[in-house]
Every structure is written in structure tokens, then in C-alpha cells.
């Protein structure tokens, strides 16, 4: 029996603001799970703290709403203990690029097979609109007493520098594209990162749905010219595989950086980078511990009639007094 979209929806009423970009992201996550027909109990959605972090409560899978900035370490532990789980981590830009930035980098180094979706709206919504680490220098969203006096971090570049092997960007109001990106991210063998541009209708009055949609820059016929565009339309090829020649790899990195820096009147979305040349952390562990996948740490039998099954004799022998 196939799973329907209803099977991925919990009965918890969402308390996001009307018009929030989070709804689109939530739908896209649920649709991608349905697309892949993943058993809900084999999926765990982890989150940090903030508006975005309420997401797991609305999804009918295991949901773990953790601490501010700490979603990735929690998710890492769960995944390493049971590599057979499908783990999706979600959180906002303050959560991931501010208080959690160290973990974002640390996790990038590992190339675990999990997916991190960053809801990026440039503000701290739940605490009423302070500047987030992705708000541009000098911008003054509506609840800021003064213009933002710090610069913005670029999540895509930071992801690349840290070692994320799949890097994409979606837009909260382009659900069909975002669903595909999240599915590709989940299916990617390794650590995948999806930044989602997510207008906050309550506190970010600069990067609004209208702004992304280009309502302020109409053509001669009066049609809005959207700022967001799809990299696929430019025939962007994000793939780096073992067959990609070294020179070509360098060129692709160059294009990646160029695209990651593009902002303002043209904002690329889609898959920026798909690097298949690195093995995953789980594979590295599996090379050392051959039972890692068949008997993962979380599912290994540790007792028999309440007696420990571990044989300590070799450990004792090693320290034995002769």
C-alpha cells in the first residue's frame, strides 16, 4: 500500500504566521518523503530552536526538536548510532549560521549521509525580528532600531568550505522545485545542504515574496521580472564525479563560487554542487568495523539474560601482570 501525503502529516496545528515561507518548505519536505515512499518510522526529522525548528512536530515521522544551534550534533549522534535511518535536519539561519555555525562546519568535515535544510529569512523571527547572520550589512528590517552593522555570512560558500558534498538552494514559494531538491538531497550519498530562501512576512520587510518575485522591477508590459531563477535554465552542471578531470573540477569549483556569490537582481536556485568523489563517514567506519551496518551501535545486542555479552578477556590480557 502506497503512502499518501496524509501519512506524513501530523495532527498538530501549526502556529506559524499566515503567509510564512515555512509552510512551503514543510509541504515540500512531506511531498519529497511521499515521492520516495519512505516508511515514516524510518525517517527522523531533527530541528534546532526557532520558528523553523517547529517543523518536526508537523510531520508524521520521528521528530526531535533539540536545542538552539545544536541540531546537527544531535542528528549526527542518531545517524551514527543507526546509519539505516533517514535523517533530515532543519533549522533557521540564526540557528545554523549563528549559534550553530561551529557545528555546521564540524559536521561538514564528516560527510555523513544526512540532509540539512536551512530556512533562511534573514531575521530571528521567534524573538521578534533581530538581524540574523544572513542579513546584509546596512539593511534595516522593520524591527531593527539601527541598520545592521555586521555583514552577512554566505551559507553556500561556508557549506563548500566545510566539505558538504551536495549544495543546493531552493525558494519557499517554488514548492515543486524545492520538493525535487530535497529529494535529490536525501538521495545523495553523503552530507547534503539545502538553503531555502524563506520570506518572513512579519519581520523581514526587505526580502519579501514580492521582492523575490521582482514586483519592483516590471518589464515594459508591466510583468514582474523575478529575481530568483533556476540554474537548470542555464544548463548548469553541478556534478563532480571520479570521472571528472582535474581541470574540469577546478573549473566547476570556480563556477560554484561565482554562482554562490550571485545576489541582488539575479538569485540562482537549484543544485549548485553534487560531489560524488568523497566516501561517507559511515563507509569509513564500515571499513574498520565490518558489522557497522548489519548490527549498528544502536541495535547491537548487548546482553544475554542480562549478562554482558562483551568478552573483556583480551582487554585484561593486555594489561595483565606476568
Amino acid at each position, binding site marked *: 500500500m502506497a503512502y499518501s501525503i496524509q501519512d506524513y502529516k501530523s495532527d498538530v496545528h501549526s502556529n506559524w504566521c499566515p503567509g510564512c515561507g515555512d509552510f512551503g518548505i514543510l509541504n515540500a519536505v512531506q511531498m519529497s518523503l511521499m515521492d520516495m515512499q519512505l516508511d515514516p518510522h524510518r525517517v527522523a526529522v531533527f530541528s534546532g530552536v526557532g520558528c523553523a525548528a517547529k517543523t518536526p512536530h508537523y510531520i508524521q515521522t520521528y521528530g526531535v526538536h533539540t536545542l538552539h544551534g545544536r541540531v546537527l550534533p544531535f542528528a549526527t549522534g542518531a545517524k551514527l*548510532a543507526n546509519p539505516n535511518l533517514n535523517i533530515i535536519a532543519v533549522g533557521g539561519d540564526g540557528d545554523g549560521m549563528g549559534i550553530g555555525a561551529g557545528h555546521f562546519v564540524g559536521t561538514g568535515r564528516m560527510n555523513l549521509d544526512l540532509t540539512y535544510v536551512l530556512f533562511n529569512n534573514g531575521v530571528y523571527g521567534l524573538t521578534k525580528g533581530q538581524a540574523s547572520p544572513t542579513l546584509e550589512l546596512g539593511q534595516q528590517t522593520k524591527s531593527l532600531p539601527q541598520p545592521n552593522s555586521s555583514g552577512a555570512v554566505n551559507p553556500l560558500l561556508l557549506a563548500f568550505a566545510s566539505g558538504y558534498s551536495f549544495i543546493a538552494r531552493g525558494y519557499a514559494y517554488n514548492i515543486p522545485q524545492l520538493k525535487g531538491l530535497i529529494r535529490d538531497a536525501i538521495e545523495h550519498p553523503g552530507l547534503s545542504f539545502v538553503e531555502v530562501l524563506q520570506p518572513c512576512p512579519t519581520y523581514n520587510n526587505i526580502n519579501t515574496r514580492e521582492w523575490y518575485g521582482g514586483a519592483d522591477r516590471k518589464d515594459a508590459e508591466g510583468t514582474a521580472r523575478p529575481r530568483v531563477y533556476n540554474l537548470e535554465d542555464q544548463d548548469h552542471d553541478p556534478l563532480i564525479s571520479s570521472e571528472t578531470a582535474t581541470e574540469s573540477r577546478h573549473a566547476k569549483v570556480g563556477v560554484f563560487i561565482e554562482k554562490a556569490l550571485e545576489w541582488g537582481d539575479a538569485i540562482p536556485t537549484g543544485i549548485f554542487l553534487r560531489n560524488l568523489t568523497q566516501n561517507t563517514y559511515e563507509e569509513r567506519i564500515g571499513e574498520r568495523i565490518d558489522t557497522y551496518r548489519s548490527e549498528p551501535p544502536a541495535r*547491537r545486542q548487548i546482553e544475554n539474560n542480562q549478562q554482558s555479552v562483551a568478552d573483556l578477556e583480551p582487554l585484561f590480557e593486555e594489561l595483565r601482570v606476568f
Partner: protein
Amino acid sequence: MELIINHLAWRIGGAQGSGVDSAANLFASAMASGGLHVFGNREFYSNIMGEHSYFELRVSDHPVACPTTRLNVLTTFDAETAIRHSNEIADGGALIYDIKLIDTPFEKIPNLERRVQQDLGKVLDEKGLPRTMNSMLQLAEQRGITLYPVPYEDLLKTDEMLQKLPYATLKKMVNTMSAAASAALLDYDLKFINQGLEETFSGKQKVIELNIRAAEITYDYFKKTFTKPFSRKIEPIESNEKRLYVNGNQAVGMGKIAAGCSVQAYYPISPATDESTYLEGHESFPLKNGDGKGSILVLQTGDEIAAICSAIGAGLSGARAATSTSGPGFSLMAEALGWAGINETPVVVTLYQRGGPSTGLPTRSEQGDLRFALHAGHGEFPRLLVASGDLEESFYDAMRVFNYAERYQTPVIHLLDKGLATYKRTFPYFDSNRIKIERGALLSDEEAAKLESYDRFAYTDSNISPRTVLGQAGGVSWYTGDESTEDGHITEDPIDRILMMEKRANKLVSALQEIPEDEQFILHGDPNATTTIVGWGSTKGSILEALGRLNNADHSVNFLQGRLMSPFPAAAFSTILEKAEHLIGIEENYSGQFAQLIREHTGIAMDYFISKYNGRPITVDEVEESVLEIMGGQAPQKVVLHHGI
């Protein structure tokens, strides 16, 4: 002169990286293979190379478990050790040293702190002696210490086999030679040293041969040169008992493996790191039934916050998971500890205390984090806190804490300290069958699959809810750091808040009823003694040995050792403490944290407090002397101990 057989306090010192540990391990191994019991204490700086470190061994025909103030033999191969430690040698003791170094002046030893130079120098100045190693030797000799000069370099350079080697190689053998000289002094068969060398350098035949040669020439030289027998002697004892020589980091690591801990996440920090590296070095191990193998995954994270969060995450997936740290790292873990508390998720934090606050004394001993461990984290949530008193308890407690964590679905802190981490002792093999593995209300896959509906935090009579783990069919559930309803979704409902607070808090009430008494506290000695010493943690060894001495001298003293600090067995403590006429608290901290805890729960205050906070462990002699001082009515209410180098 009475010959004392098989009771020895021996110390070796030198610059870090110069082979002090190797020499100490060699000597310990030689003693242990002769059937003797060995206790070792390692003191070192937070430094890679060059600063002064030393290793103290006690050797006996019965188990020994603590450091002492009174040395019998000081073995040195550098000037600094002779200068720093010669005053520590008890009457009738011996000092072995390198004759070539005797003219070394204090100012040529850059690591000798100004305070040490001044204190020692003052004594020399008064006697009109120059500030040199030789003057320290003279003072020792005047006190009746026998001096044993050994020309290490000449011995090496005149030996046919060894003289061909480059000087750098020769120099490395001085520590072997100092161990051999000690064996000669104690009239202990050289074969045990040679056996130790074979074990130490197993597989490196050439190195073994050279070291055995160096040991032989030193032993022969010593025997020929110093013919007068020394007051102490070591004789091998017949023993068929299989023993291991183990430190606390290893004992805890073994306990974790036995307990089925399968994920350990950590960030490097002294004195906890060696446990994690031990585990990673033994990540695969055989199983008792002979087929298949077990494993523990050790994850080095980017910081301690990630370490505890990853351990909790692994716990959500169903692994028995832990992290291991010290004070500064534990400070960073406070928030996550509360998350595990509100989410009723088992996690074990192994906390090795060291001198604080801040970076404090990174490699030194202190019991300064009891109150912190009891309260770390905002808000109120249940935690169990277990303090081990010796290496054996450290092993078995390391198994028990996982049972507590799963039975009560809450964080458990296993409190140890630098002393326990680095103390080394000979023990019979531990027996993991002594501790049953209890996984509490964890549901099997079959049980979970049969659930018709499931609430992770369901209210139950026991206050403990059946637990599923991520990935189990039938058990889909939610967790949140917010207050939640039974299904794990966020709530701010005042009634649910009350019920949830009570559900969590009441788990500790059950814990106190269910955990056996000897896991909560141990009353050592005569229950009706007039004086009760109260302590906890690594001071156990010193207190117990002092207790024996005091009672042998017809004093009436017992020792109440605290083990379970949270929940606290207040009623039992009241009953015991009310019986005694005099109460003496002993702790390695400034403020008497355990005494405060007891007073908080029972209203009973200690009459006296023996306190030490110089980063060095309390010795048996310090306990004995300060308790006697108190009993003699001569002591202030707070006795501050100063011993240590």
C-alpha cells in the same frame, strides 16, 4: 636495624618526556610479576615536554590504594628531582642519583619555580650551604638518608656492548638503569626487571637486549659498590591470581564496553581523554559466546556541546551512549543535560574533576565540581549522580550508570577525578557478570510493532513511560526541549506542566527506593564508633588506610563514604551521623561541598573539616595526622592540608 620486607614507597621523577613513566611502569611491572600488590600515582604538569613530573609507587604484600607522604626510596636521574623531592624521604630512606649532576645549582634548572627556589634556598642559606643539588643531598644525609651515587654515563660508556651506541640512544636507557638500581637496592631479583623489559619492548629484540644489558651493568655495579644492606627488601610472593595493572581511565573504559555502551562522543580534555582514546583503540572486541564481535564507536567532536548532543542523539536511536569530560567541558554541556532531562533520554556523562575554576589546574586533582554536577543546567530536572571511590568501583559503577540511565530515562553523571583517572593498581580481573544489564522500559521491535497508539511520555504509575527508539515501527514519537504533552508535542498548558514536572521529579523518589544501599553509601568500620569521617571519591583509599592505623591505635573511628549524591539518601545519612559523637568531613576542595550537601538534606553539620585544594591528592599520612590533631583538641575547625610537590 629491623629489616622491613615488602612494604615500600618508591618515587621516580624527571622532565616530562624523559622516560619517567616508562621507568615507573617497568619497576611496577617487575614488582607485580613478583606477586606484589602495586599502587601508582602520577603527577605531571599541563605540558608536553620539559616540566617536572614524577611517579610514586607503593608496593606491598597486601592491596594498597593511596598515596603516602613518607617515601622510602627516591630514584632520580636528573638534578631537579633530587632537589625537589629529597625532603620527602622518610627517616632511614634512600636516595639514588646521578653523581655527575651534584654540582647543579638551582638557577640552572629553569622549571624550578621561584617559590620552590626560595623555600629550599632559605634553609640552605641559613646553614651557609650553596644552592646546589649537593647541598640538598647533604641535608638528606644529615637526616639519616643513605645516598647512592650512580655514574650512569660512565657505566654506559665503559661497557663494550653499549659504548658503540650513539649518545642519544644511551641517554634513553638511564630510566631503565634507575629502575635496575632500585631493584639492586631492594635486593630484588634482576630477572623481574628483565622480564619487564621484555614485556615493555615486546617485539623489539635489539632494544630489549640493550636495555637488559644496561640493567645488568647497573645492578652489578650497585651490588658491588654498596654492600651494606638497606633497611627494606622486596621478596617475590607466590601468587596464582590473574591480575591486571590498570588505571582509572582504562577501568572506566572497560566498564563501558562491558555495559554495552556503543557510542562515545568526546572532545579532548585532561584528565578524561585517555578513556576515549583507550576505547577507540579497542573499538572492536570479541563476544563471550565466541561468534561475532562487538564494537564501540568513538566520535571526536568539535566541542563538548557537540559531544553531549551527539551522545544524546545516539541514545534516541537506542544506543547506550556516553560522553567523557572534565570541568571546563562539562560547563559547556549544561544546556544539553537539561534537554536529556526533559526528554527523559538516557545519557551518561563521565566527569573527571580537575582543579578549577576556568582552566584551573588541568592535570591536578580536586573534588571541586560536586555542587556543579548536582545543579548544572537551568530549571529543574532529575539526574543521578554517582561518585566512585576507587578503581574497582570505577569499573562496576561505569556499568551501573547505564542501568540507571535507562531505568530512570534520565541523565546520569559518573563523577570521578584526576586521582582516579591516573591512579594505577594491581587487581584481580574484574567480573562483568557481577552487574546485570537492565534496560528498563525499552520496547523491543516486536513490542513496538504491536502498539495501537503510542505516547512517548505517557503518564504511568511508575512515572516511567515505555520507550521506543528512532526507526522502530509503531513507535513514531516526538521530542522537544519545550515542555510537552504525553505525545511529545509542545505545550504551555498549566495542568500538563504540573503533571510533567511531577512525573520527572518522582523518578528520583523511586530511584532512592530501588537502588541497593551499598550503591548509595558505604559505612566502613565499626558502626558504633565515636568518630565518623565523612568523605567521597578518590580520598577513599587514604581514609581507609588511615582508619586502619587509627583503630589499631585504639581510636574509635569509622568512615561513611558517599556514593549516590543524587538522589541523596538523607534518611540513612541522618541515622548514621546521629550516632557519632564527632563528625569530620574530608574533601579535596575549599568549601566542603559534600558537607554542605549533607547539611542541606539532614541539617547535620560536620564538627571539623579537613580540606585540601593545592591540586595534590590527600595522603594516608595527612588523614592520620590531621584526625589525630583534631582528636587531641589541637586543631582549628578547618584543617587545611598542604602536602605535595
